[in-house]
């Protein structure tokens, strides 16, 4: 067996910018790897750090969080709030040993279909090189077996 590892990547995106950007990538017929599962949300301000933990809990190897560039938020300030939250949450993930290469953040506007396609390609390549998130998977696996007393 010499099958290539196909990572599972979950992308949490805002509907006004990054989702529209992904749409543009599609309608422009740009190619990007099929490893990404996109979850569309109203705003990056809606993206709770719990989503990232939930994605990992369900076996994601990488997570992408993306929304409108600062100043472009449909709700004027959602992404500014999100940015603070990400900064703090990212530091926390780093401190507890979740590799930051697996959790990415980006600003992608509705016009940046090319940026979206390129980001997904590079992210997929990077995570493929890292391999499956074995340490987290071991913890998930443990939950499937009864607790030892």
């Amino acid at each position, binding site marked *: 067996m010499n099958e290539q590892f196909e990572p599972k990547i979950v992308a949490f995106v805002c509907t006004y910018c990054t989702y529209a950007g992904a749409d543009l990538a599609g309608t422009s017929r740009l190619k990007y790897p099929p490893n990404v599962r996109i979850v569309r949300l109203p705003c990056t301000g809606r993206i709770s*750090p*719990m989503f990232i*933990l*939930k994605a990992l*809990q369900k076996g994601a190897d990488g997570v992408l969080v993306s929304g409108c560039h*600062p*100043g472009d938020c449909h709700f004027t*300030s959602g992404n*500014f*709030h999100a*940015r*603070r*939250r*990400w*900064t*703090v*949450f*990212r*530091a*926390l*993930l*780093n*401190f*507890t*040993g*979740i*590799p*930051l290469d697996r959790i*990415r*953040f*980006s*600003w992608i506007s509705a016009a940046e279909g090319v940026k979206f396609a390129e*980001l997904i390609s590079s992210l997929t390549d990077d995570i493929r090189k890292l391999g499956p998130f074995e*340490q987290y998977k071991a*913890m*998930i696996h*443990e*939950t499937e077996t009864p*607790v030892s007393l």
Partner: protein
Amino acid sequence: MSIQEQYRKKAAELLSSGEVKLVIGYGAGTTPDRRRPLFVRSADETSKLHLDAACEANLSGYLVTEGLLADRKKVGIFLGPEGIRSVNILASESQLDPDQIVIMGFNREAESVSALEGSNVRDFPAMLAALKEQAPGAGEQALVERIENMTPEERFTFWQAEFEKCIKCYACRQVCPMCYCRRCIVDNNQPQWVQTSSHTLGNFEWNLVRAFHLSGRCVECGGCDRACPVNIPLRLINRRMAMEVLDAYDHFSGMSPDQETVLASFKKDDPETFIL
């Protein structure tokens, strides 16, 4: 007159004059070196109050007991610097009216206690500014740096081993003055964000969520760390998060009752080195 006598007398005066309806302080514990919270409602009980270096608990959490402050009457309370910061945060989060709190402030040193001048939460700006400068928790700093210098795999293994011990008793939540949510996220099961079984995964998630919710709010009173029955070094995570908000946003929690909460405010030019 020792500070203990001084504050006993002050508490008696406050209670007998009717200025406060209750004084929250420390009473004798089960052993001579321990203190437990004491709620005093009449002047003749004030002789039971203790104040010495063993008084380490942050009592401010009792102030947000449901209904306590609803009658607009004042409450007196023994608070150290961390407790004063906690009251500031609770006030900035609209959990209490700071003018209802009569503070009997004290500073704890190794063997003794000294009085802090002032009785309203707004009376301590100089003390808090000095505290921000001297960066509390310096003892933890070395350990935090040691963890920072590990590889991500080593860090993960380290915390996995720590969180494996967690029994989800939620003592850390119960003791924390900042954990006043009526319904905590871990008690939610629609959706079930955090796994409730005592497997490491759910423990990991719970401790991450707890630390995140305290980011920029924790005053490092050390209550969670002391309460933890399995000795998870929670103070290290709290220290790391306090460092983060201080470095990124120059935020030192609990400086004043009007301070903006760090994760509910923003600046247009906040740093964003990691966003692609």
